């Protein structure tokens, strides 16, 4: 019961954070020139120029000193940009909090790159891309935990011995190697092993080939042997959940489901390699501290085998730190997805975000949407971590 009260209290604390993040994004986007925002939302060359009877004094002048296009005057009102900034902020907050996250622009660089998304609601478009990112994140997180916890414990137990030094070098090199460089090495290796002829197409790392299999399936051309059945390529499959592996399983395509998992291995490994370093250090250091506590000495004194001391007594107690650090590193971890998804050409939210800001004009609808989404993910991760912390450690007082 107290746990529920605690969770509800934490949820209330989340509200100011979300509002703050939205305000910061709003302020940043407000610094964009209005003309650029209009061009992004409406497109540069409207096919049917809208000509209301508006005097030039209301339209304002454009950069070359002429009367502004009346089409944009209409857009100005449609986007609410004719209001004062505080009113704009209020409208934006109201819309966002009630689930109206705006639309992908008609003239933004993102819409040019992904034509299917043009003019669609941002929430819908995010919904196409989010499942893949979540699946990849879960996969990477599983690898990180599976490697760093045992390795961290080992290097604490065998402190300053070869295994500790080796794990230190390996984990630090993961931290210091830029993920896109490692990802490129992997791509080079795959191409060399598989060869240029069998299934690797020149469009492999390109964008266009990607969105034929929008939302559900990873890039097919990139993988050797043409493992996919032909009916999938024609895009006739329905995707009830949007998660590639689960969808394939629902359709009874176990092989395909397995294939999707296999295909996620390389990106997940690259992501994990960069994050293991952080967690490994924390696990090692917290384990070192726990190993010197009294109850561990007692356990040793009463004759518990060393293996059990490490596993049961010390391991369990150092787990709390591990969980906390997982939560704290989640923000940087999920932010790195923009890079990884760009390297491997994966259609996740990170890549959508990268498109929305790097291609001009900026798609501010997607910028707003993905920022809020990433913030919610990070905040939710932290919340889960805190709750887990309380559940795992009875000494933690909820408050």
């Amino acid at each position, binding site marked *: 019961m107290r746990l529920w009260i605690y969770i509800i209290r934490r949820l209330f604390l989340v509200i100011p954070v979300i509002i703050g993040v939205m305000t910061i994004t709003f302020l940043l986007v407000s610094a964009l020139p209005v003309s650029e925002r209009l061009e992004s939302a409406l497109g540069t060359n409207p096919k049917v120029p809208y000509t209301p009877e508006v005097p030039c004094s209301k339209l304002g002048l454009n950069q070359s000193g002429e009367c502004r296009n009346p089409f944009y005057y209409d857009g100005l009102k449609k986007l609410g940009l004719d209001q004062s900034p505080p009113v704009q902020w209020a409208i934006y907050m109201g819309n966002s909090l009630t689930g109206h996250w705006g639309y992908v622009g008609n003239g933004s660089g993102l819409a040019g790159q992904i034509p299917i998304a043009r003019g669609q609601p941002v929430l819908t478009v995010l919904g196409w891309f989010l499942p893949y990112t979540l699946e990849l994140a879960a996969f990477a997180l599983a690898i990180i935990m599976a490697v760093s916890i045992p390795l961290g414990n080992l290097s604490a137990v065998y402190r300053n011995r070869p295994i500790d030094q080796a794990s230190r*070098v390996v984990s630090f090199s993961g931290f210091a190697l*830029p993920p896109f460089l490692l990802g490129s090495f992997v791509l080079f290796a795959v191409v060399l092993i598989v060869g240029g002829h069998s299934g690797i197409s020149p469009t492999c790392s390109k964008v266009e080939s990607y969105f034929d299999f929008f939302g559900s399936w990873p890039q097919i051309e990139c993988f050797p042997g043409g493992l996919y059945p032909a009916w999938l390529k024609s895009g006739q499959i329905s995707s009830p959940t949007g998660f590639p592996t689960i969808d394939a399983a629902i359709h009874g395509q176990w092989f395909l489901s397995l294939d999707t998992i296999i295909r996620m291995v390389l990106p997940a490994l690259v992501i994990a390699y960069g994050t293991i370093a952080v967690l490994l250090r924390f696990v090692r250091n917290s384990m070192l501290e726990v190993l010197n506590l009294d109850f561990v000495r007692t356990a040793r004194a009463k004759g518990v085998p060393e293996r059990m001391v490490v596993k049961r007594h010390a391991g369990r107690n150092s787990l709390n730190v591990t969980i906390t650090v997982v939560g704290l590193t989640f923000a940087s971890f999920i932010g790195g997805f923009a890079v990884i998804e760009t390297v491997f050409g994966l259609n996740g939210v990170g890549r959508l975000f990268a498109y929305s800001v790097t291609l001009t004009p900026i798609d501010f609808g997607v910028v707003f949407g993905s920022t809020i989404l990433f913030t919610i993910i990070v905040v939710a991760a932290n919340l889960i971590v805190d709750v887990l912390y309380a559940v795992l450690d009875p000494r933690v007082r909820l408050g």
Partner: protein
Amino acid sequence: MATDETARRRPNPRWDQMRRTWYFFRRNTLAMIGLGILIFFVIVAVYAPFYPASGTNLQEYTSSDGAPPSEVTSPFPVICTYQPGELPPAPNCYQTPLGMPSVVAPTVDLKTGTLGPLPFGSLTLSPSGTQLFNTYAGMVKGSDWSLTISVGIVASGALIGVVLGVVSGYFGGVVDESIMRLTDIFLSIPSLLLVIIFLSVFGLNVLSIDLRVAIIMVAFIVVWWPIYARIVRGQVLVTREQRYVEAARASGATSGRIVRKHIIPNSVYPVFVQMSLDVGTIPLAIAAIVFIGFHLFTVNTFPEWGTITALSVSQSVLETFILSCQTSASTCVIPWWQFFFPGAALFMFAISVNFFADGLRDALDPRLRR
């Protein structure tokens, strides 16, 4: 007078602690290796301004009739396409491999047979291959910029963070609450995303390179200070309750004096560790930003390590490689020199900083020393 003398002779406890830290730090082999590499990079960075800037650009000269290029006397190395086995048409002329006119490997120098004036090879800047970049010159020049930017960002971020953290931790109350909520907000957005949004809004319309550097620094500082504020606040909360602070307060010290003389010196050590870690992270973050698609710096005028590294594995490099593998297996050559040297420099820098920071943490934290 006499009391002054004794005060001067008495060893400074802070100095003592530094010597103790150095003693523990010295015993850590990896940390000493890290320190050594860092010192090497700093020396290169100090030397960089004296390196001739003109050497970063290469120009392509396509001639197979043996006529010497007209730019023989220019400081730019020249790329020539001539038949294998023939003599190079000009002394500063470098042959390119067949099928890849725009790529010069470090071993191509025919004149001496050893690593010549292009020891790190070249980097293709334009798809047509007419603009090449001397990687070695760029790396030397770039060391200066990269170190300055990273240290500048981290130092400014840490300064803001320490001030706000001390204020927050020492005074508490509403100030503490509001500063901590602000850090909550910043720590809830993936920092890379915020930097990218900042750059996309302010950076793309700016043409001046100095302003762009300023913008990228401001973007990082805005994102970087909250972590320091958090760390310092946590430390200050502990330090504030120490006996010596209580004693200082009891003997009538003002708040300003307590903060300056007792709180700050005793709570900034974790900041040093975090700072040294972050100095290595920033070139990596810039590289990631460039890789995603922000060509903030043009490498010929502003060779920055992250930018060079990101461009060395850009989409066009990967596509050229895949295409070369498709036409025939014999032309399937990884252009390793393009990404190896910049990547290795970035990697060595980041990893040495990490070794250094890890050693520093172990040396400063008495619980990990044993």
